[in-house]
């Protein structure tokens, strides 16, 4: 008991740090337009596969407190697009903060053209380098994250909403309702969903707008994923149904709906939160997988999945390591959510013991 106090205080700072990191990540993605120096779709055909821009503090004249960059220029003989670049040292481009650039909007309401940082044209500050069309990979990771993470969250909400409604009904009423609903979850869990989706895509119209594709994508991921949460919730409700406080309430004449709302639903929150934190990274991965196979949001709109799909080409994979940046973003996001799931899970366990 004595040595548990410092342990829990360490845990508390860890939890706070985790929440700050997650909040920061989402803030970064929501305000992608502000943090990204460039538009996600604007091409620079002079800079295909340009490596990440190096940020300098020192030049021939010594140290500068304001960082600066040099522009990339194709290096000498090998001028093909996959050839290497060298820094053109003839001109320095100092990095400015709070600059005007391409216009963007935040959450579709707040419009602006201010960016956190940037350099004067024709210099280009590309922190993660450029893709095959000279588009800034850093900006694309931020804008792509909007789609991928939002897809993960919306799909999770959908799966949990469907799963908990059906799980509660199955667990609370039991009998043939339970059997048929659980049969349905088994069917959904055993569905070879990737092939199923490939089939579904063939029947859809040729062109779908980004928004419609997004909702289709999240809808499909969410609806396919409700099976697992439904089973877990059903198990929990099944045991809650026979708890003394529920039986007592029923004895006092409580109606089904009151019982569900007052006694059963609150008990499932912990489980739902843990599930949510677990499902978000899984559904981000699902979006990445689907986009990787060309079933997601189409070019030129970025998502982590369709950005990674260019790495299907062997030559790109082995030549341009900076294009793995979206994979790094997926890993960071997934780890943060998984840690959050751990926190929820341990709280749930400590509550139940």
């Amino acid at each position: 008991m004595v040595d548990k106090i410092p342990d829990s205080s360490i845990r508390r700072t860890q939890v706070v740090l985790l929440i700050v990191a997650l909040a920061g990540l989402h803030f970064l993605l929501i305000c992608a337009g502000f943090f990204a120096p460039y538009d996600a779709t604007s091409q620079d055909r002079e800079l295909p596969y340009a490596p990440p821009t190096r940020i300098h503090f020192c030049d021939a004249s010594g140290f500068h407190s304001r960082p600066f960059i040099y522009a990339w220029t194709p290096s000498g003989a090998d001028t093909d697009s996959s050839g290497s670049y060298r820094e053109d040292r003839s001109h320095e481009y100092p990095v400015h903060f709070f600059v005007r650039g391409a216009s963007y909007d935040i959450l579709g309401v707040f419009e602006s053209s201010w960016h956190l940082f940037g350099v004067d044209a024709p210099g280009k500050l590309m922190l993660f380098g450029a893709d095959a069309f000279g588009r800034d990979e850093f900006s694309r990771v931020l804008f792509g994250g909007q789609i991928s993470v939002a897809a993960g969250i919306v799909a999770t909400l959908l799966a949990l909403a469907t799963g908990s409604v059906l799980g509660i009904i199955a667990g609370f009423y039991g009998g043939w309702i339970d059997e048929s609903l659980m049969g349905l979850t088994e069917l959904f869990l055993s569905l070879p969903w990737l092939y199923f989706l490939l089939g579904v895509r063939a029947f859809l119209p040729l062109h779908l707008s980004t928004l419609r594709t997004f909702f289709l994508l999240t809808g499909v991921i969410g609806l396919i994923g409700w099976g697992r949460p439904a089973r877990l919730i059903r198990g929990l409700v099944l045991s809650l149904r026979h708890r003394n406080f529920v039986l007592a309430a029923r004895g006092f004449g409580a109606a089904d709906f009151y019982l569900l709302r007052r006694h059963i639903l609150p008990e499932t929150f912990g489980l739902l939160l843990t599930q949510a934190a677990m499902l978000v990274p899984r559904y981000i991965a699902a979006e990445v997988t689907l986009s990787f196979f060309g079933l997601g949001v189409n070019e030129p709109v970025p998502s982590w999945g369709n950005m990674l799909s260019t790495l299907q080409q062997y030559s790109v994979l082995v030549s341009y390591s900076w294009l793995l940046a979206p994979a790094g973003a997926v890993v960071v996001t997934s780890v943060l959510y998984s840690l959050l799931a751990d926190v929820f899970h341990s709280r749930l366990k400590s509550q139940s013991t």
Partner: protein
Amino acid sequence: MKVIARLTLHVCLFAGFCFAAPPAPAGARAGEEIARLPDVEGRYGGHLTVGERAEPKTLNPVLATDSVSREIIGRLMGDLVEINRSSQLTEPALAKSWKISPDGRTFTLTLRKGVLFSDGQPFDADDVIFSFGVYMDEAVDSPQRDLLIIDGKPIVISKIDKYTVRFVLPRPYAAAERLFDGLAILPKHLLEKPYRAGHFAESWALNAQPSEIAGLGPFRLKQYVPGQRIVLERNPYYWKVDRQNHRLPYLDELVFLFVGTEDAQVMRFEAGETDIISRLSSENYSLLLREKGRSGSQLADLGPSLEYNFLVFNLNDLSGKKLDEVAATQAWFRDLRFRQAISLAVDRDSIVRLVYGTRGAALWGNVGPGNKLWINQSLPHQARSIEGARQILRSAGYSWNTSGQLIDAERRTVEFSIITSSSNSQRMKMAALLEDDLSKLGIQAHIVPLEFRAMIDRVFQSFNYEAAIMGLGGGDADPNPEMNVWTATGTSHLWHLGETTPATDWERELDQLMQKQMVTLDYSKRKQLYDRAQQLIAENLPFIFLGTPNILSGADARVGNFHPAVLDPYTLWNADELYIRSSAQENAGIR
């Protein structure tokens, strides 16, 4: 201990090299009219491994349609006349000479005497008559049949004597001898029975025994392992010898590994598991180029290929098709000025740089700089001009709304989808560039990547598409294989399939030009006609031509006589001449 073991192994290996030298094939037999290649030298022995992207579908030369099957079958079979891939000219093959009558309709071919099939059975005029009978049989439905039916009438073939055959064409046909390349001569003694019994379609399938298959090519079938490889061995009766009268081919074995994708081809090649890659993308080529210092492999950039990649608009007759949305877009596409504006807005230089990594060429017409014999050099190469394109659109009654979108005279925003094959990364890149170029005109183009078959189905069958990025050509430098693209009734007349008569005046003139060049025998007159045809195509833009990749090939340092060419098959056309350099050199290279 280990050192001694390794040393012993080396001694054993060395001994193996000395004693396992394969017996050289027998020289010319009495009465055998053998073909001598005075420039070819090499060394017997060894095997060459080629990585194929897919497994062949069949070994039957009459029915094969996929490129992998054809590449393998081509090594097993011989033709009457061959196109030398390097010079692009015809050369005598199984026919040692031919005569053309003054009216250009009668071809008399004299066959080589004493030639044997790979199973040792003799070859003569009966095999030729039998083979062409099969190719022209409607029931067999060979893809080559179309070539032998001119104006709806078949070519008449007759046997003059045991070694002379006569082909009578229904009308003069330019460069008709080129037709013989790719029409493999079949062994009558093996295939007549199944053909008469109506089982021809099942013969020479992949599961056929090596003893059932015989040809006149440099190799014969040794083994087929499903899903893994096909092994060909030397045909000891092949009818060509080198400079020192050594019977070709040099290689003991030619092995085709089924590796799956181009990337897998490259990886296997890098690992030294395969020796030749026929076609490389520019990215993979640069990758291998960077490693060249270490691997020493031979890499060849042969310049622009004969294929052309283009954007095509759906101008098909859609009446009765229930495709109202597509039909609504056709009003724009039918307007030549709209197509001109789009062509002017395309940044072809960027396509060459970003898609082909500078290893390609921009195209403004259907004949590219790779086809030196036929290209119309006088066609203008308009520089990209967004402003010029906007002016053309303005003059055609288009305008822009406040958000910069292009709107037509009926105030509809101009927006359409472009389909392309998702497996072709180069065309996907072209699409992304095109999308950006068109956005500069205020046109919203949506790129829709489709699985290759799904795309082909939309373009050729259902017509349910608005525009597509595709590629054609690459077979032969001659204009005749292009007939099916540019004549109204052609099977690849993509922008308007199934026409019975040309829809417009320029299409009518194009039809006439193409028909006329086909029956004109004189090269310069044909060139004039084809120049005019190219001009019509470039002016009327049924396709918006984009670019063509260079032919890029690679071979291991050990491969001798590696002479890749811009015509398909790019590297294996001279498989009979390829050899493996001496093992001493080879070992020196590896150590």
